[in-house]
């Protein structure tokens, strides 16, 4: 009985269909995010990537500012100040830190030799300031990283884009060339160049120009092959867009995610390769300094002056680590599928 009464209270008007009111339904309550804003939001949540990003910024600033701010240069020799341990103002009073100007036996070398100046990272066997040399070496590492990224972007994308877009015989020939280039190890390429030119930055750069872009070209080709049959490409072509416009305006922007990820992973591996080459004596030659050659020099006196090896070794490891962390973070941010 009760139930029936309740039913009778319900008015049929209540059951009218809601007015269409399309505008209200479609209203977007939050500001819409572009692809980049979305990626940045995801990247920001990745603590490791942010730590890496901050470290890259700090290291880059140091590499730019430190050699300029110091009144010593990377090649100034001062034999009277040779083989000094690190000494940093303020930190010198904290005894468990290795910055108090004492050598492995606990002798204050600065007092013993009457050196008034501070060498923050100490000096090498020719009295060159390791602080300036370390940051100068970091500059070289960063230059190599930047160069590798540029080569990837310029040659890799163009090659992969053309190969994938034209397909058929062009693609076949271009892919065979890549296969042969890939078969020649990078190290071998560098050695061949070093035999013709002098060891140094030019040989490393040239070898990189010839072999460094193949991974990128393969990835771009794969993506372009997939995308070129899409309807929007057909539409653009129907409207009379030239091939170059199709490749650079329509296809490349849609491959931008994999491109950025590949570039980010190229950088640390290029930095590592340069350090490695300099370490075995194929890269930067003295008096110029690279982190790899500094580690190699420091290694010779590891028992008596461990700081000469440890400091550049820590800097190069931090540099590669930060780039790897950021690359991992960007991959996760741009491509949620690949996220852990």
């Amino acid at each position, binding site marked *: 009985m009760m139930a029936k009464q309740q039913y009778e209270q319900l008015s049929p008007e209540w059951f009218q269909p809601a007015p269409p009111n399309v505008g209200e339904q479609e209203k977007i309550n939050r500001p819409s995010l572009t692809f980049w804003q979305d990626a940045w939001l995801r990247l920001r949540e990745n603590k490791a990537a942010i730590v890496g990003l901050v470290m890259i910024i700090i290291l880059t600033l140091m590499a730019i500012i430190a050699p300029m701010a110091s009144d010593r240069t990377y090649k100034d020799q001062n034999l009277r100040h040779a083989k000094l341990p690190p000494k940093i103002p303020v930190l010198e009073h904290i005894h468990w830190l290795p910055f108090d100007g004492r050598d492995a036996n606990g002798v204050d070398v600065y007092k013993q030799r009457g050196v008034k100046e501070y060498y923050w990272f100490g000096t090498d066997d020719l009295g060159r300031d390791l602080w300036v040399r370390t940051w100068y070496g970091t500059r070289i590492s960063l230059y190599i990283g930047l160069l590798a990224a540029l080569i990837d972007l310029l040659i890799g994308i163009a090659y992969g884009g053309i190969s994938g877009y034209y397909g058929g015989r062009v693609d076949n020939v271009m892919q065979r060339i890549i296969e042969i280039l890939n078969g020649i190890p990078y190290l071998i390429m560098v050695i061949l160049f070093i035999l013709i030119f002098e060891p140094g930055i030019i040989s490393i750069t040239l070898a990189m120009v010839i072999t460094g872009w193949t991974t990128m070209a393969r990835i771009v080709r794969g993506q372009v092959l997939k995308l070129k049959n899409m309807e929007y490409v057909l539409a653009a072509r129907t409207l009379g867009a030239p091939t170059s416009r199709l490749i650079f305006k329509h296809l490349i922007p849609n491959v931008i995610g994999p491109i950025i990820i590949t570039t980010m992973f190229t950088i640390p591996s290029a930095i590592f390769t340069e350090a490695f080459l300099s370490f075995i004596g194929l890269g930067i030659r003295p008096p110029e300094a690279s982190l790899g050659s500094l580690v190699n020099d420091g290694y010779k006196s*590891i028992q008596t002056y461990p700081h000469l090896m*440890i400091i550049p070794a820590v800097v190069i*490891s931090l540099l590669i680590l930060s780039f790897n962390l950021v690359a991992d973070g960007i991959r996760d941010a741009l491509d949620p599928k690949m996220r852990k």
Partner: protein
Amino acid sequence: MARYTLQRFVYMIITLFIIATLTFFLMKLLPGSPLQNQEKLTPEQKALILKEYGLDKPVPVQYIQYLGNLLKGDLGVSFQYDNRPVAELISDRIGPSAQLGFQAIVFGTIVGLILGIVAAIRHNHWEDYTATVIAVLGASIPSFVLGGFLQYFIAVKLQWLPVAFWEGFKYTILPTLALSVGVIASIARFMRTEMLEVLSSDYILTARAKGISQAGVIIKHAIRNSLIPVITILGPMTVNLMTGTLVIEKLFAVPGLGEQFVRSIELNDYPVIMGTTLFYSALLILAVFIVDVLYGVVDPRIRLAGGKK
């Protein structure tokens, strides 16, 4: 399958041929000759020496001879090591390098696989995070830095193991460790990703639904299927190991091929540099060829895509 293998084989030969050709013409471009520092020689003596090295003939003839010698395994003679044949120098030095490489691959693969599998099973637990941190660090710290640190802290400071040289198994532990870290990092990373993907696939769900135990699912279904793509990283890993042995052998004074290679670069001993370069390239290209064929055997999709063309 036969067609696919043949195709890979032809590419291998072409690549080797191109590298050999490049090497030859670069050697021709070099300023040095066997006559250096021997100005006092009479023209007859010079001609005799040139003839001995086969340098009196025109370049194309020399090129053909060079290719012929390569096929016979003759890589020329060293400038620095008393005119000894390069091939002999290489075969003398290959032992320690091969042993180091082998130990590093075996140790690195076992540890890497365990890390990767544990990380995938305990996804988003502390075991996973630990394994990920180890993998990132292992991929980031250069082998020469790691080798130096191992040597300084374990051999010099703690004196647990010998610092350097090559006089028995104890001497191989530190270099193997330094060399295997890169292997551990790449295998652990790859295995973890593969395993996570396999674990979330439908046939694993089916296996679980049929009531197979966790251990059974992991061992019989997940690990076996995750292992297949891991074969692909064996190629790049060979390159890494090769570059790794160069620095590790230098650091630990191991009398291997890498150490000799670095020394011959310092001494500008061109024939040894070129010979070793060719040897390394051939080894690498062979490794890539074997990986390609192996992968074609394991995964039919690859050889079908490759052989159709």
